[in-house]
């Protein structure tokens, strides 16, 4: 088990290295310098030169990249070209907001999806089942920004129940959390239902029923226990979806998190910030998948470090 964990952790390194290479290449292929923002009042050439030297953007690309990697190894992500702070500081100050939003959304998704999936599997082809499948289809199909727009229109503009955008009070958090969680919720509901239906048909369930166990014991002890293992594996992709979905939701609802910062940094051509946030996202997603694989291996003895 330990060797499995260590091996998976080591595999993260080449992955992140490639992410860094591609991100670096793209950021530098972009035309224009971050210092020529205002075409009406161009900076003097000497100033630009000094700024470029200060931030190291005048050196050859491979040198810049090696420098970047070296700093990366020391968790130094450089400083923002636009704001007077280091990338690590910006991430540090805004990550908690995104983390809170993401964790709330994940918990909400699990809290709704697990019971709903179980109930619709047990009551297959009833109204409950059909309703939850409609929800699951809509949630996985309709893009989150479309749902966000409709939700803002209905609840904030039309009914005036909650503030349109912003962050801080619980009232602000309702819409972004719900909208962000919908995709994962729908996905997990679908998986839970399918997995339950699969488990119910197994021979050991028939055996359990045949030897006269009460239905509740069969469902909880035999069906549920086995049905939740595959569901645990898709929590990883679902979390990845929450992370990448967060920048759209944060931008729409103006949540001061890392996702909105990412979108802003793109329009400002703030390369170190773009790269830092993108690396962070890739790292978090890889970590989420790793955690799930480990949990999976621990839960299911059949998997044993394959």
């Amino acid at each position, binding site marked *: 088990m330990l060797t499995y964990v260590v091996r998976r952790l080591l595999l993260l390194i080449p992955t992140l290295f490639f992410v860094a290479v*591609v991100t670096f290449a793209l*950021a530098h292929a*972009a035309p224009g310098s971050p210092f020529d923002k205002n075409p009406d009042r161009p900076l003097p050439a000497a100033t630009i030169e000094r700024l470029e030297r200060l931030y190291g953007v005048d050196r050859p690309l491979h040198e810049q990249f090696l420098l970047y990697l070296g700093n990366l190894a020391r968790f130094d992500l450089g400083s923002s070209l636009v704001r007077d702070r280091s990338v690590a500081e910006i991430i540090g100050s805004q990550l908690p907001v995104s983390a809170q939003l993401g964790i709330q959304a994940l918990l909400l998704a699990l809290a709704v999806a697990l019971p709903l999936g179980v109930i619709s599997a047990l009551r297959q082809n009833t109204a409950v089942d059909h309703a939850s499948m409609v929800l699951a289809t809509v949630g*996985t199909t309709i*893009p989150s920004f*479309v749902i966000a727009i409709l939700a*803002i229109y209905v609840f904030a503009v039309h009914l005036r129940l909650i503030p349109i955008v912003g962050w801080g009070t619980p009232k602000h958090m309702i819409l972004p959390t719900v909208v962000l969680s919908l995709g994962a919720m729908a996905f997990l509901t679908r998986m839970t239902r399918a997995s339950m239906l699969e488990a119910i048909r197994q021979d050991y369930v028939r055996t359990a029923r045949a030897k006269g166990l009460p239905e509740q014991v069969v469902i909880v002890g035999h069906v549920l226990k086995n049905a939740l293992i595959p569901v645990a594996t898709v929590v990883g992709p679902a979390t990845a979806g929450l992370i990448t979905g967060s920048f759209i939701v944060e931008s729409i609802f103006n949540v001061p998190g890392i996702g909105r910062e*990412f979108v802003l940094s793109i329009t400002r051509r703030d390369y170190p910030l773009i790269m830092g946030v993108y690396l962070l996202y890739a790292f978090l997603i890889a970590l989420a998948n790793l955690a799930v694989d480990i949990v999976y291996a621990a839960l299911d003895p059949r998997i044993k470090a394959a």
Partner: protein
Amino acid sequence: MPEQRSLWRDAVYRLARNRAALAGLSVIAVAALVAILAPLIAPYDPSDSFTNAGRQAPTLAEPLWGDQRYVDPRYVLGTDVLGRDILSRLIWGARVSMIVGFVPVAMILAVGTTIGMVAGYYGGWVDQLLMRITDVVYAFPDLLFLVIVMATLRNTAFGEILGGLVLMFVALAIVSWVGMARLVRGQVLSLKHREFVEAARAIGVPARRIMLRHLFPNALAPVIVSVAFAIPSAMLAEATLGFLGIGVRPPTATWGVMTNEGFQVFSTSPWPVLLPAFCIGIVMLSFTFLGDGLRDALDPRMKV
């Protein structure tokens, strides 16, 4: 003797009985028709700005908004913030959506099936290379990759071809061909030791012909299903990028760009953003219904 039905006839029969799939197919057919006929059916030029008619409410929604001042019967679905006819923009936007849906998926199909088939059939270094590339590409979160590609390269010469569409095609193809290649590879691996392939090889059929005539048709079912899901996800990528303001360049009318522009005046006039958002939602839903229907029809065992 009972009537014999081929696998494909059987699938068509099963699909025809699936009402949700048929509804999805009809919506897609209508959207495709609208996209093809855009220049003929759009009442106005999508970029023409009727400045004296800035932001008119949809005629159909008159009872909802009530205020006569903002309703102009010439613009059935109203006008946007720049006074452009929303109906015409939606019609031309359908065209962009269809192009974005089909062109990159055709690229993915061509590249992915070829490499997948070669990797699966020959194995060896092609297969090894494919697997390593897969590891790397899977590490990139799709949407984030599209976002940084569009954000960084859309102002280059290449990114400006067709208002950024070509760059988007290439970026979409780069993140998606691997999935297709993996799928085809897996199919080929499970097929290549079957008797009909061995028989073909035994009588000296060249490898190229085995792949095209024996392996490809038999691997087609899951490929069709995955194409049915790849098309809407490409459209969604365009819409999302457009909404974030880094998609196809204005003034090209696309549903994504329209949601972006409409969202800025959302609280005072919701229709410029609600209408394209509605179109995106309906088309996405239709493709899901069709994709689910195709999956059930082509491979009943895959049913979830």
